[in-house]
């Protein structure tokens, strides 16, 4: 078997709750709370409703519940519906620079924890492990640079965490990795041009297939021997692949390193939104002559270059559009994800202002990214004034972290859309103490709407 895969399998087998630092445990809880908030906030979105219907076709005595309901389905289908809910608002954490959203592995871990009857410590360990493997693959190769999508990291991270919860031995853990990589490379076309629902659903689908890989390995399925290092394996596909470091006892676990989103919007819009909010206090929208966003290449390429971004017609394009988001923020003088509602996407005032927005790459910013998330916003008024503000680390970045209170506030706002306030409070109480629980399914109990 592939030496890189063996290394992952040995690491996964050996990792225990005791080897996690206190910080890692706490940060994992913060990300569970943050992700569940996003899932509840996105509950009523169209793709989430369809995903629940698809997952709900199957009823099972085992498996995991569809989030927010008491319906148990098989864990890969629960991973699908719950993963889509968690991601659809684009409010969950991120590894900037093509690393996607590692918390996409949380929903499948909840499903697997329920399926396997894991306790709170087991759940936290599996999530920390999934983050670790996810990040190691992102460090191993940036799929995006090769026209492919980050959801491969989701599939592999999910698969390893799921295999851990299933208690698979090292050999089957290795098979899981192979079975997660080989069929699940995805095209970056998902994030190009006019965006479809799939932008927010590709990760839930990868989580589904990651869980399936672990279930296959548990049944004894064997995967290709050298899925990373062998001929026509992952390394050949992307040219080079060097698995990143995997954190050991007392190390800096990667679950502590992802950036949370303060605003429910694409990660690279976080700094520009912060800047626009500051300037909007001084400028009336009708006084704006032009808006220039100076940013790093990645943000320019992802959310500020294609013509579709200036006049989005879908929610998915709108929430990946700097011109649209900034225009809406400058008009509203606040940020709310209500700007992505069908009515606002057609708002002529927003479209008119978007025509005044230009996005430019700043070479110095490109050099500083991704360790910083820099943005300089310049607004020229019709009277010829120039207002400028620069942001390096938006709130939620590891260098400018959200406090626990802010994590709670975000959760309350999102969960409050579907749960009564008392329910939200009791859910938070339980989630902060998840490591004390004998049965991890308490997480899904806490946010059940029924």
């Amino acid at each position: 078997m592939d030496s890189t895969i063996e290394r992952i399998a040995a690491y996964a087998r050996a990792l225990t709750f005791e080897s996690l630092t206190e910080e890692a445990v706490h940060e994992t809880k913060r990300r569970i709370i943050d992700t569940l908030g996003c899932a509840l906030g996105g509950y009523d979105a169209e793709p989430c409703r369809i995903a629940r219907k698809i997952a709900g076709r199957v009823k099972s005595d085992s498996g995991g519940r569809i989030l927010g309901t008491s319906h148990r389905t098989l864990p890969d289908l629960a991973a699908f519906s719950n993963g889509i809910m968690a991601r659809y608002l684009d409010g969950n954490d991120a590894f900037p620079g093509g690393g996607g959203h590692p918390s996409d592995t949380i929903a499948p871990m909840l499903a697997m924890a329920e399926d396997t009857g894991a306790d709170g410590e087991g759940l936290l360990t599996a999530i920390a492990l999934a983050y670790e493997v996810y990040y190691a693959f992102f460090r191993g190769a940036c799929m995006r640079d090769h026209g492919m999508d980050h959801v491969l990291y989701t599939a592999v991270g999910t698969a390893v965490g799921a295999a851990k919860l299933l208690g698979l031995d090292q050999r089957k853990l290795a098979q899981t990795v192979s079975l997660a990589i080989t069929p699940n490379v995805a095209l970056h076309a998902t994030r190009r041009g006019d965006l479809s629902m799939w932008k927010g659903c590709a990760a839930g689908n990868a989580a589904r297939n990651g869980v399936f890989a672990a279930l296959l390995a548990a049944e004894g399925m064997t995967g290709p021997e050298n899925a990373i290092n062998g001929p026509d394996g992952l390394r050949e596909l992307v040219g080079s692949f060097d698995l990143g470091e995997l954190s050991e006892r007392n190390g800096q676990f990667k679950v502590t390193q992802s950036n949370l989103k303060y605003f429910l919007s694409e990660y690279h819009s976080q700094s520009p939104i912060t800047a626009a909010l500051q300037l909007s206090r001084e400028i009336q929208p009708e006084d704006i002559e032009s808006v220039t966003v100076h940013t790093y290449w990645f943000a320019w390429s992802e959310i500020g270059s294609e013509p579709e971004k200036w006049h989005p017609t879908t929610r998915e394009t709108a929430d990946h559009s700097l011109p649209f988001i900034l225009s809406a923020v400058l008009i509203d003088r606040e940020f709310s994800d209500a700007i992505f509602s069908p009515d606002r996407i057609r708002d002529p005032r927003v479209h008119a202002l978007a025509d005044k927005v230009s996005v430019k790459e700043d070479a110095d910013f490109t050099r500083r990214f991704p360790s910083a998330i820099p943005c300089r916003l310049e607004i020229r008024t019709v009277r010829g004034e120039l207002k400028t503000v620069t942001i390096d680390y938006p709130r939620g970045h590891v260098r400018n972290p959200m406090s626990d209170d802010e994590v709670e506030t975000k959760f309350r706002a999102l969960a409050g859309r579907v749960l009564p306030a008392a329910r939200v409070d009791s859910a938070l109480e339980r989630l902060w103490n998840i490591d004390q629980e004998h049965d991890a399914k308490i997480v899904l109990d806490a946010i059940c709407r029924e």
Partner: protein
Amino acid sequence: MDATTEKLVDYAMNVQYDSLSASTVEACKLRILDTLGCVAGGYDHPVSVAARTLAARYSMDQPATMLGSRARVAPEMAAFANGVMLRVLDLSDMYRVKSGGHPSDIIAAALAAAELGDCDGRSLITAIAAGYEVYCSCCEAIDLNSKGWDQPVYGIVAAALAASKLLDLDKIQMAHALALALVPNMALYQTRQGELSSWKGCAAANASRNALFAVLLAKAGFTGADAPFEGKSGLWDVAGRFEWPVQVGVPPYRIARTHLKCFPICYHGQSAVWTALEMRERFQIEDVATVRIYTYRTAFNLMANDPSRWAPATRETADHSLPFVVSVALLDGAVSESCFSQSRLREPRLAALMSRTSVCEDELLSMQCPESSPCRIVVQLKDGSEIINDVRYPKGHDRNPMSAAEVEDKFKTLFGSYGSLRQAKRMIALAGELDRMKDIGELVGGFARRSRQRGAGYLRGGHPGRAAAGGANAT
């Protein structure tokens, strides 16, 4: 929607049963029968059992059937289990021009979709013929394998179109189904390199599972990437630009050109086994000094390019090893499922013969491929004399086709390990009546295993090659 998507969708929507020629309908029915035979033969294989065990958890109200059982499960999981069973013995049909694969893999997705959609036999035939056309034409257009991509990449496109047709998706939904199938399922060719794993026989079944899932998503209202083939970071960007050569309005015909197999091994070993079987009467095996196998590039790359092919540790490697299958043919006079047991893989006599076997690519033979599937074997005896034999078109090749009777014999032989001869004959009749069948449930129901008792035959030494050889000799 990009132009390739639009063409494929228009093509699939345009194919109607009435436009199919009689020979296409016949070829399709024969391939369905051949595929069901493979399911029967592979039913008790441990990988099939594992796939059914997993799929059986997914029971639901709007299900499809896992073949052989009466268990009704989520249709995508029925497609998975059925896809594993039909492929696990590596006896299903084959097509290779620039790329290659096993177009009958799509039958797994089509059958589950047909059941879910309460379709009749004609709809199933039409969808399968259209799916084969999409699969085979891609194999003609581009060598995706040499770019590192495996069969599921085009298989999933064909399977998604066939299933979309059966489930009556409209044009826009079908386009989304294609994007939802293609974009997340780029499978690596690593599956077919080095020591082979059980995934070799399951990768296509997984594609059927995800093809059907994509179709169900599209039907439920999901939207997928706008330009999955031609757009930025679409298939062309990672595999090269190519025209998918289906022509809207031209009825499908390629299904009649796929090659059927006689032996449960990689297609590129079929002619080598025939070559060995034909010549083995002309010498005593103890007298053999060396065996030299001359073959074409694809066969060399798949079945002789790695030291594991001289000491296969798994069934999957053994059935993709020219030294192994030729040695077995020379020693046993047959190549059947029983030669892949763990004890056979370790047998000293086999190892000794393999160690005296060499394989080389012959450029002249490579030039004849894919039009033919040529092989030459030179056996040198200890006294220095040489015995030479050639086969260009193994039985089942479209230039040396199996007759309907021979396909039926193969089916009966494979069915022997699964059910009674009476049931086998009943299935042959049902497959023959497929174009008049009102409800596809009849075919699926007819296949349900009647008892746990094994029939005589296949695993005990009978092999479909013999049946076909017998048929060939009689003509």
